[in-house]
C-alpha cells in the first residue's frame, strides 16, 4: 500500500502533463472534426470560392455568379483588401478566386470573349472549381456562336441564358454503392489514430518518472533495508503502472463517445476500442523498456517527446497514411504505432464483420501483441543485468 500511495503521489505531481496532452487530443479532435452532415446519399464536394465581380450583376454576368454560387461554397472577402485575399488563398480559406471584369456582359455578348482572371491553390478543389468555370464559359460560348449565326444583329440574351441554364442543369445520377457512413467513420479513425500520441506520451512519461523515482539511490537502499522484498515492490509498481495505463485508455475511450458520436456504438466502434486496448498494452510495455534504458530523469521529457512525436508523425497519426511518402510508410513497419493505425484504417473500411473480413485486423493486433512481448522480454533482460 505504501508503494501504491507513493505511486499516486508521483502521479498527482505530474497530473498537468497528462491533462495537457489529453486536452490536445480533445481540442484537435473537436477542431478537425467539425461536423459534416453524415449522409448515405451522394454529396458533391463544393470548393471554397470567392467571386470579385466588377460588373453589374445582370444578364449573363448574373447567370455566371448564380452558377458558381450553386456549385461552390461562396466565401465573402473584402474585395478592396488584396492582402486578405492573398492570405485566404495561402491558408486555404478559399481554393479559387474568380475576378469578373467590368463590362463582362457587354464584351461577352459582343463576341469579344472577355478574360476571367483567376487565382487558385492548385489542389483538387481548385481544379474542380476551374472545371465548373470552364464548363459555364464553354457552354455559353457555344450558344453564343449559334446565336450569332442566326442572322440577327444583336444576340438575344434572354434566349441564350434560357438555353444555357437548361443545359447546365443537366444532371447525372450518382449512386453510392456503399452503405457505410464514411463521414462518421473517418471521424472515429481520426480520433483513434490521434490517440496514439497522448497515449504514448502518458504511458512513457508516467512509467519512466515512477520507475526512475524508485530507482533513486537513497530510495532503493531504504527498500532493500525494509521488510518487503524488492520483487514485491516491483510487482506492485507493475500493477500500478498497468492500472494507470488502463485508466488513461478508458478515459480516452469514454471521451471518444462524446467527441466522435453515435458511430462508436457500432461494431466498428467496438473493434476500434479493442484495437486501442491492445495498443495500450504495447505502449505500457514500451514505457517499461524505455524506463529501463534511461539513466537520468532529465532525459525523460526528451525521450518521451521524440518517441511519441516520431511514432505519430511517421505512422500517420497526424497526417493520413495515404499522404505519407512510400519510403516513410515502409520504414514505419518497425514501429508498433504503424500496426495500430493501419488496424484502425482497416476497421473503418470494413463493410461486413465476418471472420474472413476481420482476419487482416486480427493479424495486425497480433503483431502489436508480439511487439509488446518483445519489449517486455528486453526490459526484463536489462533489469536482470543491472542487478
Amino acid at each position, binding site marked *: 500500500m505504501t508503494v501504491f500511495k507513493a505511486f499516486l503521489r508521483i502521479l498527482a505531481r505530474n497530473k498537468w502533463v497528462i491533462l495537457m496532452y489529453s486536452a490536445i487530443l480533445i481540442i484537435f479532435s473537436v477542431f478537425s472534426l467539425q461536423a459534416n452532415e453524415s449522409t448515405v446519399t451522394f454529396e*458533391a464536394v463544393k470548393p471554397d470560392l470567392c467571386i470579385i465581380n466588377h460588373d453589374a450583376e445582370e444578364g449573363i454576368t448574373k447567370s455566371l455568379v448564380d452558377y458558381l454560387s450553386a456549385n461552390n461554397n461562396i466565401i465573402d472577402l473584402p474585395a478592396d483588401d488584396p492582402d486578405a485575399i492573398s492570405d485566404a488563398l495561402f491558408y486555404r480559406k478559399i481554393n479559387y478566386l474568380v475576378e469578373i471584369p467590368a463590362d463582362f456582359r457587354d464584351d461577352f455578348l459582343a463576341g469579344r470573349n472577355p478574360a476571367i482572371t483567376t487565382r487558385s491553390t492548385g489542389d483538387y478543389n481548385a481544379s474542380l472549381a476551374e472545371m465548373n468555370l470552364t464548363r459555364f464559359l*464553354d*457552354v455559353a460560348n457555344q450558344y453564343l456562336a449559334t446565336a450569332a449565326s442566326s442572322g440577327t444583329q444583336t444576340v438575344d440574351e434572354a434566349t441564350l441564358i434560357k438555353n444555357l441554364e437548361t443545359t447546365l442543369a*443537366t444532371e447525372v445520377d450518382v449512386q453510392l454503392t456503399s452503405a457505410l457512413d464514411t463521414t462518421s467513420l473517418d471521424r472515429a479513425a481520426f480520433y483513434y489514430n490521434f490517440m496514439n500520441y497522448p497515449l504514448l506520451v502518458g504511458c512513457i512519461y508516467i512509467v519512466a518518472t515512477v520507475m526512475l523515482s524508485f530507482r533513486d539511490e537513497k530510495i532503493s537502499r531504504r527498500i532493500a533495508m525494509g521488510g518487503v522484498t524488492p520483487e514485491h515492490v516491483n510487482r506492485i509498481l507493475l500493477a500500478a503502472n498497468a492500472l494507470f495505463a488502463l485508466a488513461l485508455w478508458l478515459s480516452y475511450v469514454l471521451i471518444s463517445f462524446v467527441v466522435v458520436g453515435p458511430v462508436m456504438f457500432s461494431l466498428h466502434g467496438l473493434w476500434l476500442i479493442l484495437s486501442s486496448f491492445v495498443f495500450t498494452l504495447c505502449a505500457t510495455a514500451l514505457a517499461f523498456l524505455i524506463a529501463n534504458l534511461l539513466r537520468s530523469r532529465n532525459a525523460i521529457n526528451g525521450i518521451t517527446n521524440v518517441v511519441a512525436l516520431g511514432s505519430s508523425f*511517421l505512422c500517420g497519426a497526424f497526417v493520413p497514411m495515404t499522404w505519407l511518402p512510400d519510403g516513410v510508410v515502409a520504414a514505419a513497419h518497425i514501429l508498433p504505432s504503424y500496426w495500430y493505425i493501419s488496424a484502425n484504417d482497416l476497421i473503418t473500411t470494413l463493410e461486413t464483420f465476418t471472420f474472413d473480413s476481420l482476419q487482416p485486423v486480427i493479424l495486425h493486433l497480433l503483431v502489436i501483441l508480439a511487439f509488446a512481448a518483445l519489449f517486455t522480454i528486453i526490459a526484463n533482460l536489462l533489469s536482470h543485468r543491472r542487478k
Partner: protein
Amino acid sequence: MFWHNFKYTLKIVLRDHALIFWTFAFPLILATFFFLAFSNITSSESLDIINLAVVNNEAWKDDQIFRAALQELSDESSDDQLFNTKYVSRAEAEQLLESDEIAAYLLLEESAQNTQSPASPQIPTIFTSKSNIDSTIVQSVVESIAEQASIITTVLQENPAALKDLAKAEKANIVDQSSSNLDYVMIEYYTLIAMICLYGGIIGMVAVNQLLADMSMSGRRIAISPARKSTLVFAALCASYLIQLVAVALLFLFLIFVLHVDFGTHLPLIILLALIGSLAGLALGVLLATTIKSTANTKVGLILAITMFGCFLAGMMGITMKYLVDTNLPLLNRLNPANLITDGLYSLYYYDTFDRYWGNIITLVIISFVMISISVYSLRKEQYDRL
C-alpha cells in the same frame, strides 16, 4: 571581467545536456519529422489521374459522344489526361469498386422514353463508394459530356442551320494569376524557426540565474563581490545570445541544405529576422528570469509553455489556427513573438512587397526593447532580507 564571465557562461550552458538537447537537437528532430510526414502533402493534393471503369455494354458501344470524349480524357500521351479508364463488364466494375481500385464506374443505359435527345439517347449513371473529390470530378466531367448532347438537341430544335457554328465557338478565356509560392507546409518550418528563437530564452535564463543571489550559490558570491553587476549581466547575455545564434544558424543550414526548405530569395532579410527574433527570445527569457520569483524549473516550464502556445497560435499544429487568429483576433498575433517571426518569414516567401516584413521586424524590436527595459529595472538595486 567581461571575458571571464563570458567564458564561464559558455561553459555552464554548454555542459547542460538537457538544455543543449532542447535548443540544438530537438528542433532538428522535429524538422525531420515534419519533412518525412509533410513532404508529400502538397503533391498529393494536386489533381491526379483518376482510375475509372466503364461498363462495356451495348449502350456504351452505341454512344459516339461519350466514347469519343472519354477516349480523349483517358489518352495517356496527352497532358490533359484526367482518367485512367478500364472497359469492363458490370460485375468486374463492381469488383474493382469494392476493392478500391477505381474511384467510380460509369454505366450507360438505353432509355425507353428519352427520345427528345437524338444525339445521345443513353442515360449515364455513376456508381461510387464515397462522396469525395474524385467522384465529384467524375460527376462533373460526365455531366459536361452529357451537356454536349443537350446543346446539340437545343440547337437542332431552334436553329438547325447553326449546328455547324458550334465548332467555331470560342474556348473559355481564363487567365490564371496564381502565385507559385503556395506551399503551406513552409509555415510549419517557419514556426520551427520561431520556436528555436524563443527557446533561446532558456539559455539566457540559465545564464542570468547564475548571477541572481536567490537562484544560485554563485549568485550569492557575486552579490557580495565588488564586480560591476551590469558588466556581468551583459557578458552573460552576450554569451547566451552567441549560443542561441549558433543554434538558429544550425537549424537554418539543416532546413536549407538537408531538407531544401524554400525561404525565398532575400537572404540578408532572413538573417536580420533571425537576429531580431533571437533577441526577442533572449529578452523573454531574461524578463521571466528577473521578474518571476520561483524555482528554475518553474521558469523554464513557463518559457516552454509560452513558446509552445505562441507557436500553436502561429500555426505549428495546423496552419488554420494562424489564419483564424490573424483574422479574428489580429491583436493577439500582432503581439505574439512566435507569430511575428513566422509571419515575417511567410511574407518574404509569399509577398512581393516588404511592408508586412518590416511591420513584423519593428514590432519585434519594440517588444524586445520593452521586455529588456523591464528586466533592467527589476535587476537594479536588488536587496534580499534573507536567502
